[in-house]
């Protein structure tokens, strides 16, 4: 499997570097710039009379929460920056796994070698998942390092578990993208399909009992943040999605004709 992994590392290195730098850059800006800006606002955030009173009240009420560093990281990093980039990059990183080989016709070379299709898929999954995890974990752990310079103490328990949700959510998105990459030979169409699934599942999640169909809900758990206790449903659901879509990808790949 090692030659395949080396090939995948080389093939995905540029995408990984871009993703890693974007995540790293965002983390750098978030604490020294983003948090500093919020924390230095004295008193009320909005005094502008042109802003309706109810909105002014809501925004002003939120300000003390934002000054609370754990809430700031929870809402701005896990709930916004990481979430947006992780969804986008996990699709971009995963969508070329099989569709890329088919599109550029290297699939005939690759799949006629004496290597099991399972091994080929596994090597691709290992590399994509590893790159995604590194791109999320390192910038996230950079946050407490950066916050020390202010200085601030970040609750590491909240950060660790928050990161766990984010990793599971990211890998679930990647697994869905790998599934479409296996199913559809065209990378662009596969990308649209993966995005479409994520977009469609957001409103579908408002249907009673279908809360966890929304992939975005896997990334951040408000219940965990409120209670400090690990809330298992999104984790179990995320792991289930990963297993299901990777198994489905393998099943399709095994039957696929090149």
């Amino acid at each position, binding site marked *: 499997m*090692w*030659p*395949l992994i*080396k*090939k995948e590392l*080389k*093939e995905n290195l540029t995408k990984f570097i871009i993703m890693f730098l974007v995540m790293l850059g965002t983390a750098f800006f978030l604490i020294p710039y983003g948090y500093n800006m919020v924390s230095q606002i004295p008193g009320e955030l909005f005094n502008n009379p042109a802003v309706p009173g109810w909105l002014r009240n809501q925004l002003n009420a939120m300000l003390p929460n934002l000054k609370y560093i754990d809430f700031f990281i929870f809402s701005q990093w896990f709930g916004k920056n990481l979430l947006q980039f992780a969804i986008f990059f996990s699709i971009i990183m995963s969508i070329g796994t099989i569709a890329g080989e088919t599109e*550029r*016709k*290297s699939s*005939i*070379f690759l*799949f*006629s*070698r*004496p*290597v*099991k*299709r399972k091994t080929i898929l596994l090597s691709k999954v290992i590399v994509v998942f590893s790159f995604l995890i590194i791109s999320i974990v390192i910038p996230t752990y950079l946050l407490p390092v950066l916050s020390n310079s202010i200085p601030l103490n970040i609750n590491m328990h909240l950060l660790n578990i928050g990161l766990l949700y984010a990793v599971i959510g990211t890998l679930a998105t990647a697994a869905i993208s790998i599934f479409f990459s296996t199913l559809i030979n065209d990378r662009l169409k596969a990308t649209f399909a993966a995005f479409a699934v994520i977009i469609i599942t957001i409103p579908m999640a408002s249907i009673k009992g279908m809360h966890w169909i929304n992939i975005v809900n896997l990334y951040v758990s408000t219940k965990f943040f409120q209670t400090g206790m690990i809330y298992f449903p999104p984790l179990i659901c995320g792991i289930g999605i990963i297993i299901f879509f990777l198994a489905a990808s393998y099943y399709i790949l095994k*039957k696929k*004709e*090149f």
Partner: protein
Amino acid sequence: MNIIELNNVSKSFGTVRALNDLTLTVPEGSIFGFLGPNGAGKTTTIKILLRLIKEDSGTINLFGEKIDIENKIKRKRIGFVPEEFSLYNYMTGWEILRFNAGLFEKKNLIKIDELQDTFHLPLREKISTYSRGMKKALSLYIALSTGPELLILDEPTDGLDPVVRKRLLDFLIKEVAEKNITIFFSSHILSEVEKICDTVAIIKRGKVIIQEELDKIKENANLITVRLSSKIDTGKLDAIGITNISKIDEFTFDLKLFKNSSAIVKKIENAGGEVVRKIPLSFEDIFMHFMEEKNVATH
């Protein structure tokens, strides 16, 4: 031993039947020509052998054993030069050779020096800088570098200039002579098949219509001129299975024979005819005969 045995293999893509009860055998150590027009089913047959696609029905034996679903073990013994594929353009020639050797679990690359003496590829440069002919040559390097027992070539000379084409064909002949490997040579270029192959199968619309040693096929294919002692009676000739004659005069006719030449000549002689001229047919004539459906069932 037969290296490849396909028995009644069928494959359809939607409503199109690509292979129709295809049966063929490739003897060990032969250069087997697999001839047919575009769309006849040559590439489909090769992809089935390599498990890139799966047959709908029929049985396939490779190296004397039935092939399994993924056929991993037997694929280690096969080198493959496809009609068209993309290699990884970001790799250099050496990198793709090493990558391929890794997939075959081979530590050493075989034949590269010998191949370099013939093709002089810039192996330290990226594949993206290679011409089409160079990529084709590189795929031959890849196929031979793992020491295959069976080399499958799908239109290997397509897109090559005449010099490289000749070098490639000469190299293959030498390879078989020295190593006794079996070559499955799929092509629609008759002159190449005639030059290097010892056994030939002609495929048409997914079915093998003839498979025989090339010399025998050519031996049986003749244009004969027959003179009869009495005026030509086509009804009488029909009765003994002689059709498609070209009359020269009332007593003489030309007849193209493609199979069972000696048996037909004997019939003619028994019917009071005499073969006055016998001209061997070209391989192109033979191929064209088998491509024209109405003639296939005759002689």
